Structure formats: structure tokens, C-alpha cells
């Protein structure tokens, strides 16, 4: 059958694309819209490298069909930095060496931003459980968790 014609909003801009029913939102972002910042680590929702916001809700884009997102708002890692300036989480990740290879970093940043929007003062326990769906094999999570908590503290000070 013919491809689906979908219109959605991606990082604040109108986006229009064609996709097959079986194409996931991750396939669409990476292969059709050339937004390769979202990574495919497992395609089964177990690694979080493809994390995006869908209508303000944190999801794995590998578990959403492209044809489901008509008329909806999608935010990806590419939309995190506003204009010239990096998001405070992005800056803190750099300063704190909270990434090694960097493949999981976009997913962690999108997920961490979602956390801080819900909870401005998360405990270490809350950060670790919120991020449990984001696998990192390099850092042992220490510097990531620290960076998220430090960013939260800095943002609370404003």
C-alpha cells in the first residue's frame, strides 16, 4: 500500500515525511529527516539511546511508529541547545567528563532534561532510577549522575 504522509513538529519546526507502517519514529528521524543524533542501540526499548520527547513525554523512538506521530510534537537531542548556547546539562556533561565514547550521551541528555522538568531537586536515588532505561557501558554512571545533580542544583540557583 502507499506510504503514510505525516505532518508533525520536530524541534519546533514543521516536518513532513512519508513512511511505511513498520518504520519506527527512530527510522524516520535518522533515515528520512537526517536527525542522526538519536542512536539505535537495541531497537527493543532496552538501552534508551533513541530517547526523544513526544508531546512532552519521554519515550524510546524505537518503540513508536512513524505513522503514529501525525500532528504531534517531537523533541530530539538536536533541539536541546537553544541558538548559540548549550543547555546547562550539555555544558555540565562536558565540564564533568560525563561522557566517554558518547554514543549514549544524546539519550541521557534528553532523559535528564525530562527529569529536571518534572523534578528540580532529584535525589541520587531518583536520578539513578529515572535513568535506569539509559545504558552506558563506559562511565559506570558516576559522572553522569553527578553531572545531572550538579546541573539541577545550578538551575535551582538560577
Amino acid at each position, binding site marked *: *500500500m502507499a506510504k*503514510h504522509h505525516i505532518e508533525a513538529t520536530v524541534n519546533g519546526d514543521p516536518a513532513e515525511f512519508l513512511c*511505511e*507502517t*513498520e518504520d*519506527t519514529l527512530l527510522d524516520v528521524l535518522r533515515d528520512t529527516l537526517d536527525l542522526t543524533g538519536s542512536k539505535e542501540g537495541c*531497537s*527493543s*526499548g*532496552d538501552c*534508551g539511546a533513541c*530517547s526523544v520527547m*513526544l508531546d512532552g*513525554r*519521554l*519515550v*524510546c523512538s*524505537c*518503540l*513508536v*511508529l512513524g*505513522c*503514529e506521530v501525525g500532528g504531534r510534537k517531537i523533541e530530539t537531542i538536536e533541539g536541546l541547545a537553544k541558538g548559540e548556547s548549550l543547555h546547562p546539562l550539555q555544558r555540565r556533561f562536558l565540564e564533568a567528563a560525563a561522557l566517554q565514547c558518547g554514543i549514549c550521551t544524546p539519550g541521557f541528555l534528553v*532523559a535528564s532534561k*525530562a*527529569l529536571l522538568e518534572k523534578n528540580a531537586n532529584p535525589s541520587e536515588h531518583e536520578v539513578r*532510577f*529515572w*535513568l*535506569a*532505561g*539509559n545504558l552506558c557501558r563506559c562511565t559506570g554512571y558516576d559522572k553522569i549522575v553527578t553531572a545531572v545533580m550538579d546541573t539541577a542544583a545550578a538551575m535551582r540557583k538560577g
Partner: protein
Amino acid sequence: MRYEAPESLEGAVALLAGAKGEARVLAGGTDLLVQMRADVVDPELIVDIKKIPETRTVTEEKGGWRIGAAVTGAELKEHTRLKQAWPGVVEAANLIGSTQVQGRATLGGNLCNGSPAADSVPALIAAGALASLAGPKGRRDLPVEDVMLGPRKLALTKGEIVVSFLLPPRPARSSDAYLRFIPRTEMDIAVVGAGVSLSLDAGGTITAARVSLGAVAARVLLVSEAAQAIIGSRLDKAAQDRLEAAARTACRPIDDKRGTIEFRTDVAAVLSRRTALIALDRARAN
């Protein structure tokens, strides 16, 4: 592969009933999409039910709660009053996968995926939840424990879908809880799951209880012997032992990559006790 997102129940039922090849209902998609990727299923038709209002709402009904089959775990978590009435059901729904998965995964999907290890199902069964179905012959209600017949086998007829769940009214001094065992702290499939719902009289004696166990048999079990073991008690040590014994007897697990028969049986006993004690504390607080 066709994709349809009807806005009415009738539309959805008609599509499913009329499907030539394999048809699948799409709610959160957290199981369906994985199975499609792995070539486990290759449906001819996918019917997305999220545009049907009844599947997406949580409403109070006759003192109880009606939860749409396509409401996500994350949405349930944000529903303060539901969480207060049925903390076990809400926490079970929020043990399914990661934060990301909870943003998509639904009670309807978790049940209809037909896994004996589904986290929310023991909690729903313990709660005495009714599944409200719609099909070519109209609407009917089924107790949740009767929806799943075995791994990937459901009591639904062709064209029939789970629309919502009805949780009964809560008397005073009632509450519920759900615990599961996994090797990690998150992200695993339950090796054992235990749901307990109970009510107390003014003196703190258990007047009513339902106990359900997941991942210890081909389907999620409602263990009435376990409930009987604690009804009329204040969950003293003797009652706890009776509860554990009943849970053990009920287990008919398998050896697999996630756990052995011996391990599942032992842990089922431990979890049913621990879950009951949490439910008891909560009930006392109400």
C-alpha cells in the same frame, strides 16, 4: 502492512473483525514493535486504539475507578487520587520497563501481550479488576484472571478488544501492593510477581483479601488458598507461614533463563509475604 487509527470503538471492532490476515491492536506498542522487529509477528493490519476516548481516560465510576486500556503507566502515576486508592496497581504499572517505556506502556497492552510475567496483571487480579471488552457481539465484562488462558493465549474472540478496566470501590482500611523479583533493580522481566489486596476491620483483622502470583505458571494465578490463609488474621507469624505455604503449593513454574523452578517457588513465598505486609501497613494507614 496497514495502519488504522479509528476514533470509535465500533470502527476499531469492525476493522479487526474484517481483517483478512493477522491483525494486531496497537496501544503502547512496547511489546508489539519489538516482536515486529524480531520477525516474531508480521501483521497485515495494525489498529491503533489510542484515538478512542474511552481507552485513554481515567474516571471515577460507582465509587470505583475505570481506567482506559490505553492509559500509560506514567499517566496513572500522575493521578493522585487513583494512586491513593490503588497504590499497588499504579506501582505495578510503573514497574513495566524504563521511564521511557512507562511513557508508552499500557494496562491493556500488558494484559493482551499474554505474558505470565506481566507486572500489572497480578496487581489487577488482586484488585478484583474487571476487563471491559467490546466486540462484534457488543460489550461484555470479564474478570482479569479469566482474560489470559496461557502464554500468548487470550479469551478474546476475533474482533474483540479490551477497552477499559473497572476497579471496585474501596472500603475503609483497604489497600493493595505489588512486588516483583528481578536480578537487577530495573529493566528486567519479573522472575516472580506478587499482588495482594486486602481490607481490615476496625480491630485490624483481615476481612477480605486477594492474592495473585505472576511468572510462576503458564498464566497469572489468582491464589484463593493464599487469601484464605490470611483472612481472619492480623497477619501474625502463623498467618504469614500459612500464606507462604499456600503460595508455594500454587506455583507451577518452569526452569528458564530467568530462574529455576526451585528459585521461583521460594521467592514466590517470600514475595507474597512481603507484599501482604506492605498492603497491611497501607490499609492500617487508611
